[in-house]
């Protein structure tokens, strides 16, 4: 296990199989696909950035790496991917075994290049705030203060724009000095970029070219006309604050039996067009703050009539969500536009109601945007998360822009696609697989926005056919992968990160042991979670439980140790031992069990899952539980209802929620105030310890999780109970120990699950 973590530290990569099945057939029987979870911008321990351009193979354009075979005498190198021999250029002539360039150091499998600063002028990042005003004054108040705080935190040079919307969309011209000025667009009508150019007087002083206007300064848009809407944060702070101060609830009257008229989609479309007009191709984020469902314009998710409820999962399944498809189609179009422009859409959805995250998902995910879902703009989940975006400290997100991700691999490996926040650039080539998973049929992807945490899940296909010659090459049983990420660093420069991996492949009858030793069950669980989510979204009539069960059974059948038809003889290698538990919890997780969640919440959970690394994904699938008691220090507890005891404090981290659960006795003592009495410092300390740990978790996580502090038998305790293995239920034979708890559920417990699994696996 730890070796996988070490590899992750070095390269930011975790793979379900670290020893590859060598043939197509072999791979198929492995059940879990050959997949890698890669965090492109994970800080690398070596930390150094190479201040020169990389050396590329002239055949396959892959980059010189430690796996290249270097001929020092002849000063050339052989590309491990295509076996092309390349000569070193002049400035590498001093190369020798003792004098290696950094990218050839064996431990430097991941290196970062930075192009010369003069090559590309650094453009400051753009933040365009798109603010919903159809909210109660209180919410607007929270949002205002959050925004003005953000403006203070913004880097001075970064450009800021403001759009507000409700019934209409208002584009504020912050650069107009005299009085607050805004352009008002109708919410029900889409605006094209051309209309925007014309209607906002971008080409007043000179005629607009007839054709081919992409706009931006390149097409003759004057800097002044751009500066009307996008201003350096330092210059517009005052005017922005005064506009925010005047900001009020949308003034259009709303009948009592109707929803407010909120044109989210039009506002976003206007925002996208504005950025497309002003700063195409350079890093920019649209930050949308939405406080309710969109009811106006092409992306509306529900009608204005209050008696018509917002779509549920059931409606989506039955196809009785009349707005859904149209809205999704609209946002697909919007995402295309944004990807084309290289801009990011961030979504801050703060409402008790749904706001349409499910529809917006495609646009946010394809552009690599951030998404935060909270109950209110006053809630810490929003407030703290939002602050984190702009704060620069140890936990800053390292927001980067305009990423392009490329893959090179050995010829026997093909790429099926990526599940994660990126968009296909439709660069087809020989290494694209015919079967597509997620964003596929390409070897390059656009990542308009990415940060230190962003993790992609690459799914590979082993194309190597079984054959007599296939087995006889022990010398070259390595597969090579190279991941290239070009991006605009948050400090402005363009960078290229190259990660080159080498993995052994095995084939043939004796390979099982090798495969087992290379199995990373956590990564596999994360891959399965992404896969099952994707399939649930994209495949009609997909039965996730069945699919997961069958996969698990097949996996166990193949890699388990058992006598046929003897379930008691079944055992699993330690490499696989927790995997069934992961699957058990995944079946019960919010990703699979959509019942009780709104489509918005489901979409939100999946979007976060799709951008998180393995460790965090595992927490989402199987929350961690820590127990605190007088008897022992903090220790991990089984995620089981039996973990509950009256004299314990439990800390549950399910990623989105952190639950602090006080046993009944603890709660009584606390309510009696013992922690404040002298002589009871130990109790005070016991109370404080989980708090500190919870704070630590919240501090480093983005989006900031929701903290639930509850007591045994309290109503909030459900947040804990829902995650625990129901080993003791209301109809169990064995009663709970005193101070323990039961769960009112008919769900199977893990033991029952495992029994079934063993029985089926051995058949």
């Amino acid at each position: 296990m730890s070796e996988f973590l070490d590899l992750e530290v070095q390269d930011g990569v975790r793979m379900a199989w670290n020893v590859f099945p060598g043939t197509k057939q072999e791979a198929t029987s492995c059940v879990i696909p050959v997949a890698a979870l890669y965090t492109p911008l994970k800080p690398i321990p070596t930390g150094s950035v190479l201040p020169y351009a990389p050396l590329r193979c002239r055949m396959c354009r892959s980059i010189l790496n430690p796996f290249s075979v270097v001929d020092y005498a002849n000063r050339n190198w052989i590309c491990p991917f295509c076996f092309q021999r390349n000569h070193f250029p002049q400035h590498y002539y001093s190369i020798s075994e003792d004098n290696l360039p950094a990218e050839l150091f064996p431990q430097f499998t991941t290196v970062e290049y930075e192009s010369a600063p003069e090559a590309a002028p650094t453009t400051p990042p753009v933040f365009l705030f798109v603010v919903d005003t159809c909210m109660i004054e209180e919410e607007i108040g929270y949002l205002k203060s959050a925004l003005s705080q953000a403006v203070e935190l913004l880097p001075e040079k970064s450009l800021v724009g403001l759009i507000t919307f409700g019934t209409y969309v208002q584009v504020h011209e912050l650069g107009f000095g005299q009085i607050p000025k805004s352009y008002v667009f109708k919410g029900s009508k889409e605006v094209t970029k051309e209309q925007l150019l014309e209607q906002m007087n971008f080409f007043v002083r000179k005629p607009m070219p007839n054709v081919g206007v992409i706009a931006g300064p390149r097409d003759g848009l004057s800097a002044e006309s751009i500066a009307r809407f996008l201003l350096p944060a330092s210059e517009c702070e005052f005017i922005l604050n005064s506009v925010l101060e005047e900001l009020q609830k949308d003034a259009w009257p709303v009948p009592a039996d109707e929803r407010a008229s909120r044109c989210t989609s039009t506002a976003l479309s206007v925002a996208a067009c504005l950025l497309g007009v002003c700063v195409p191709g350079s890093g920019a984020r649209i930050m949308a703050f939405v406080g309710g469902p969109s009811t106006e314009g092409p992306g509306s998710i529900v009608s204005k009539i209050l008696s018509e409820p917002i779509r549920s999962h059931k409606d989506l399944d039955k196809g009785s969500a009349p707005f859904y498809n149209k809205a999704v189609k609209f946002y697909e179009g919007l995402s295309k536009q944004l990807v084309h422009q290289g801009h990011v859409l961030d979504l801050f959805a703060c409402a008790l109601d749904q706001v349409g995250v499910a529809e917006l998902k495609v646009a946010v995910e394809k552009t690599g945007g951030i998404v935060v879902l909270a109950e209110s703009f006053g809630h810490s989940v929003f407030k703290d998360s939002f602050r984190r975006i702009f704060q620069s400290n140890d936990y800053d997100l390292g927001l980067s822009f305009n990423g392009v991700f490329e893959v090179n691999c050995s010829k026997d490996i093909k790429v099926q696609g990526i599940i994660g926040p990126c968009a296909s650039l439709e660069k087809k080539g020989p290494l694209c697989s015919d079967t597509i998973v997620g964003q596929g049929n390409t070897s390059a992807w656009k990542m308009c926005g990415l940060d230190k945490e962003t993790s992609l899940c690459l799914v590979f296909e082993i194309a190597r056919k079984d054959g007599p010659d296939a087995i006889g090459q022990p010398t070259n049983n390595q597969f090579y992968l190279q991941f290239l990420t070009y991006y605009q660093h948050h400090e402005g420069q363009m960078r290229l990160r190259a990660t080159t991996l080498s993995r052994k492949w095995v084939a043939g009858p004796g390979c099982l042991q090798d495969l087992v030793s290379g199995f990373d069950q956590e990564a596999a669980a994360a891959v399965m979670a992404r896969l099952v989510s994707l399939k649930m979204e994209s495949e009609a009539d997909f039965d996730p439980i069945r699919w997961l069960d069958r996969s698990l059974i097949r996996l166990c059948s193949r890699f388990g140790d058992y006598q046929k038809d003897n379930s008691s003889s079944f055992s699993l290698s330690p490499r696989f031992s927790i995997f069934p538990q992961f699957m058990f919890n995944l079946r019960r997780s919010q990703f699979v069990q959509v019942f009780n969640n709104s489509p918005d919440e489901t979409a939100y959970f999946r979007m976060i899952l799709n951008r998180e690394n393995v460790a965090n994904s595992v927490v989402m699938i199987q929350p961690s539980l820590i127990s605190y008691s007088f008897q022992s220090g903090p220790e991990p507890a089984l995620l089981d209802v039996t973990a509950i005891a009256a004299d314990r404090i439990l800390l549950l981290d399910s990623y989105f929620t952190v639950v602090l659960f006080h046993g009944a006795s603890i709660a009584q003592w606390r309510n009696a105030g013992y922690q404040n009495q002298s002589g009871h410092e130990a109790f005070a300390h016991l109370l404080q310890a989980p708090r500190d740990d919870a704070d630590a978790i919240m501090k480093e996580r983005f989006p900031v999780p929701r903290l639930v502090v509850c007591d045994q038998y309290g109503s909030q305790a459900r947040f804990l109970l829902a995650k625990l293995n129901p080993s003791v239920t209301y109809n169990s034979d064995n009663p709970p120990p005193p101070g323990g708890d039961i769960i009112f559920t008919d769900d199977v417990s893990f033991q029952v699950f495992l029994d079934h699994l063993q029985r089926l696996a051995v058949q």
Partner: protein
Amino acid sequence: MASSQSFPSGVPRPRPTSFPPNPNPIPPPPPFASASLPDAMQNLQIAGPRGPPPSPSARPGPPPQTIPGRPAVPPQPSLASRPLPPPPPPPLPSPLTTTNGPPEFGPGAPRLPLGPPATPPVPQGAPPFSASLSAGLPMGVPYGAPPTSLHPRGGPPPSSQPFGGLPASSQPYGVPPTGPQLYGSTPSQQFAGLPQPFTAPPATSPPFGPPMWLTQPAGAPLTSGPMQTPPGMLGVPPHTTSQQLPPALPVMNLMPLAGAQVSTPSKIDPNQIPRPMPSSSVVFFETYLGNQVTIPPPATNECIVRDTGNCSPRLMRCTMNQIPCTGDLLSTSSMPLALMIQPLALPHPEEEPIQVVDFGESGPLRCSRCKAYINPFMRFIDQGRQFICNLCGFTNETPRDYYCNLGPDGRRRDVDERAELCRGTVEFVATKEYMVRDPMPAVFFFLIDVSMNAIQTGATAATCSAINQAIVDLPEGPRTMVGVATFDSTIHFYNLKHSSQQPLMLIVPDIQDVYTPLHTDLIVALSECRQHLELLLNSIPSMFEKNAVAESAFGAAIKAACLAMKPTGGKLLVFQSVLPSAGVGSLSSREAEGRTNVSSGDKDVHKLLQPADKTFKTMAIEFAEFQVCVDIFLTTQSFVDIASISVVPRTTGGQVYYYYPFSALSDSGKLYNDLRWNISRPQGFEAVMRVRCSEGLQIQEYSGNFCKRLPTDVDLPGIDSDKTIMVTFKQDDKFQEGAECAFQCALLYTTVYGQRRIRVLNLSFPCTNVLSNLFRSADLDAQFAYLLKQAASGIPTSPLPQVQEQITNTCVNSLHSYRKFCATVSPSGQLILPETLKLLPLYTLDGWRKLLLSCGDFIIFCFHLSSID
């Protein structure tokens, strides 16, 4: 009316026109064919044969023959040249020189009030010409000028018609001398004209005349603008400069009747020319006197009206003060039957204010059949238990609480206490029944052009400062609401909400499909936003100082503004400087096209005076539905296509102000003054007007600035003291001799203070079978207003000559009718004018000229309705 004995002494009588008729009431109206007939009118004797052909000189180009007549004098110069002044007609010298009246009068004519000096030339003229009175009067003939218009038609027949009896068509050419006098701007010109007759041998005249007649159409175009091709137009010295006399001369030629004087110059007495003589003294006028309708004084006179049954002539005026019993009689008279209604006309300060009558919950008493409002002419019978409607004749029950005994005279005893029973004009308080919604506030929305041109010419600055000064005069109180928007190629609204620190600008960029950016706060109570408003108006010019947008989205802007005003309605004041060139209702610069059409003599020139398309009309009807009244101030230096734009104010009860070419220096004050009057004058909103009349008459048409959705009602989103509406009638049934024919106009409107009122105007006239009575009771001012309005409405749809012809015909026909039926005995050489209408020819000619001038410059002759009345 006609003064019979005036004739002998001639001179004094004709003038008295300016006096109210009452002063010389002639108890027995002269019977139709009485011997005194000639006396009843002003006769002009025309010495046909004398007709000298001086005219040639007048026409520069055409008649070669002229030259023989006056070899020495080249046509044009001769006229203009002053050398000739010395030889005035011997008898006239002193009077002429002393009384410059006539010449001045000519140019001044269009402006009625400017009339001749008060000093009456009468005495001078009188003695010498007593004998030649008839000849002296010819001066009046020129007013007969209208016949000139007949010429274009080459029309001996029509021309001869009015003067049917006249011997020779050639005679007309004799007129010239009078012509110059009338039209010439200086006395010298007069004289210049005069000698000619002498130079020209009488004999030549016959040969002369005809060619002139015929050639005119061809020759005319030379001097003046293309529009003036028709000879008739030439006749009017377009710019009244002396140099342009030549064109004027033909007119003289055309004067068929004046020819006589040429040979006997002694007969020409300019003093005899009937002309308006507004007296400087204030006239007291009672509308109804001893059960008799009185004839109102001319509109030009200052007068104090006492409403004694009929309403003040200021408010409602009929073209005749007796109504013909039959339709035949009406058509025989060739006079129009029409009402000029100016329902909110300003009263004289010394007049009694209009009384407001409140009937309480039940609302004003009305005839249950025709819904006419109670008025002084409704007759109470059966001891007051019933009353008979004077409009439909229906017998109504008197409501219990309105019952009152009748006195010995058959009138209700309380007549004098109740305004609605003794006044021709009252205002009823409207009850809920008369309201579709609560009375709207007084909303004033200012829409200002800030396109590059407007900024650079200073129009925007002038406008903003004018508004800033003028809002002081807006009615006080919470009911006065204001809003401001500016526009170039986009529309900029301003949120003037009190609570915000400064006005917020909201731009509507979509000018194809406009909308209002806010639901509230665009229109705010003046008392709450005065500071913001002033701040805004002060900063608008500087805010747009560097505006480089040359486009103007006028149509979209007014539409958006109207949407903003939709909930309330109100007055939209638009300040526009350039041709609307973008968005809804954008217009093309038709002007250039128009000019080429003109120069090529295109027949469809008048199309330029029609709206380019229906966009604005459709819009305007929508505005009217929202009760939005649009006034447009055009501060322009270029073509703005008023023809298209003006449709909006015309349909919404608004008005066009035209400052062309706009100069910030000289027009700013005027703009302010106009604006100030516009918003501070007495006015009402959300008005509906209906006119009722006695059975036997039928309303033919309403005309004026309004919108009409129902055939019977006129919708006026805005109505003010300056607006007049004309209603024409046709007769479909007979009246009994001696019966009374009544008109009632009811105007339901909301005052600026938010009261809903019904203003009811009543007129009741006796009916007559006698044609001469009609003429005697004719109202010149109303008739002339009718003429002008007809002409103005005709101009955009028919070629100008045709319009002119129509005016002339209307005038000629009624005069002809008078001559034919009321003055059969008169000598054939005389032009006979009914006393009441003796100024009609003069007015006609002047109105004519005004039209011509306007059209020549492509200026639409806008109805300043008030100025006509």
